[in-house]
């Protein structure tokens, strides 16, 4: 949909919906929310609902960044330590490589 052609209440409604949806362990929804509404929140001339939209966009963005950091950190820890963790490492793996520790 072309966001610029929507009514302002509609924009606020969507942004809010996406923000709440992201709490269901859906950081990608937050990321989409932040990117999609970025222009509306910060670059268009001010309108009534823009303050709220700004709030949601910032919070979605922060949430997405938080998730990204956590997942990257876990990924690094897992990849470097899987072998050292022996049995636990194998229990956490979905596909265990063949022919390697």
């Amino acid at each position, binding site marked *: 949909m072309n966001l610029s052609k929507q009514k302002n209440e509609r924009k606020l409604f969507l942004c809010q919906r996406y923000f709440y949806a992201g709490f269901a362990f859906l950081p990608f929804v937050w990321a989409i929310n932040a990117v999609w509404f970025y222009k509306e929140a910060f670059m268009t001339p001010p309108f009534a609902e823009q303050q709220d939209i700004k709030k949601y966009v910032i919070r979605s963005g922060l949430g997405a960044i938080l998730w990204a950091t956590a997942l990257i950190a876990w990924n690094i820890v897992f990849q470097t330590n899987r072998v050292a963790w022996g*049995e636990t490492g*194998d229990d956490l793996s979905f596909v*265990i490589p*063949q*022919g*390697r*520790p």
Partner: protein
Amino acid sequence: MGVTGTSHRGLHGHHVIWSFIKLLLLILISSSSLSLADRTFTKVYEPISGINACFKRLNGTHEIGCRSSSKGDVGILHLIEDKHSLDWVLKDGPNAPYITMLYPVDFTRENIMQFRDSGRVTGVLLLKEKGINTNTTSFSTDSSCPNQNSGIYNTSSSKHCQSWNPAGNSLLWENLNFPIFYVHSESETEKLLKCFDNFNRPKNGITSQGWPLCATQLRSFMLAAVDTPTCLRRSSVFNMNPGAGKVCDPLGDQNIWASLLPHNSSESYPNNSIIVIAARLDGASLFDEVSPSADSSISGIVTVLSIMKHLGEASVREQLGGEGPIKNVYFMLFNGEAFGYIGSSRIVFDMAQNNFPFNISSIRYFIEVNQAAVSSPAASYFLHQSELSQSRELTDIFEKHGKAFNLKVKVVTPQNEWGVPPSSLQSFLKERPDLTGVVLTNHKQEYKNKFYNEMFDDKETMGYVYGDRNVYSVQRNMAALAATLANSVIELLSSPSEVKVEPDLETVDELLHCYLESANCSIFVELTGMKQIEQPYATYVGVAMHLTSMSQVSKLVTSRYLGYLVDNITEDECWKLQKDKGYYWMNESCYDISHVNSTEAKSPAFLLDGYDWSSGKYSTWTESIWQSFTVRIFIKPSLVHEIITLVSGILMLVFSMLVVRKVNEKADIIFQRSRTEALVC
């Protein structure tokens, strides 16, 4: 109108026939070219057959052996002939990584470790020397003190690691981490050497030949890693296809054991009332499918089988009463001994669990025959004894009966610092240190066998010639030893005894021929009732879920020699009674073999819940699962050449796309046929 009409139809008809002919020609040409066509890769790679691979085994804490990457490891071929070629591979050669070819004389621990540590070698090919081995005087990859961690001497004892096998370089137990193949075929070796000479041999020995060079790819991908508990755990991960995720298998096979005299299973044997005569059934080697193990194990097996035949002879057996203190004789052939005494430790375990007709305290004498090949006139057999319990009675009887056949048996005194040699007896001594056990071998201290547990331990290095009835031949000595032991056992069972046996040279000779030269021999064919393979059976114990032909045919020979002949019975009746009475039809007769058993020879470590894998109490060896073993050679161009080929291919693609686009735009001008045809019609 009619004229034009017919001519139009005629032209059309021509058109149809002509296009039909064109279609037919197209089909014929394409189908003929399809049948002659080869896949491109067959024109590039030359496969090498006649190869044996080194593979990976794992134990409770380590992994050993060789592995390659999943697609195979590639390297430039280089032949090791002297120090200069060794330096070339390790330091000087500009085209690393290399895959080295060597002869057994260079397959030393030092060289292999250097290859492993240099980072410039991605694989090794072991070649067979042309003709008879003249350069190789010893070749053993087993440890210099075999099975030192599974025996009775722990690390604090001075006898823990004596140099029983000084030729051993322990490569069998190293984690080599790159593929190693043994090329046993002479024609394939020629291919490799020719490729090396034509493309790779450095000019004047100093400068490298330029690209293209002869390269080879070795593939021996092993699925298991780390150690046994890890690979077993990974094998049991849930999989939709049961058994599809398996990465390793425990080693094992069957132990063959049988009693000489009938025994009522409800009665138990009193203490010290049984004689056990034992030998080891298996051999080992670094490479798959090549473990002839002539002196290492076959010599012992054939001796014990010959003793079985002597004592199982009806005229002898019926004289043996069992009224004296010794009630019975049990023969035992242990499997998997090379890998931590798998078979013997399992039987000791079964005895302790009361899963055996008797327990270890019932054994009066334990007699083992180990490495029994004696071929020189001055040589003699040696009788090693267990330290805590020797028997003058036993050694005197041996010496006495040995004299009758001019057999020299030297008793090794207990004061000898070397202790008991590596043998299945050690598993029994671990459980009961005061057991009276003896081991008969051809060596006092260092092994006479310089090729212990490796692929050159065959009939030639053992000095066996089929049909050689010379007084000093291997078969004569072994037959004399078997007869000596048989007579000694007869006297121990029911002395005094007039029953005496003579050395059975023919049987020993035939059995050696069967086990060392060809399984398609009269004895095996008669017993199995079918033709056998032309090669001797491999002696490697293999994985527990597959029984080897070696153990099964040995069970048949045991059954034949110790079975009771059943008269007046047809073949069908005999087969019907197989399950209930243990009858078996072989050699055109029915035999009662209910007292001949084959029980699982798998380490107790795999049976006990919560076994501590690092305890070292039982053998924990497993074998990795592999996919396929391939070796192939090809001509490899330089990296620059390869890049140029790729780039010109891409440019050709882009150029052809441009041409087609251009032609498509101007199609109307180039192809005028359709317009002119329209004009004609």
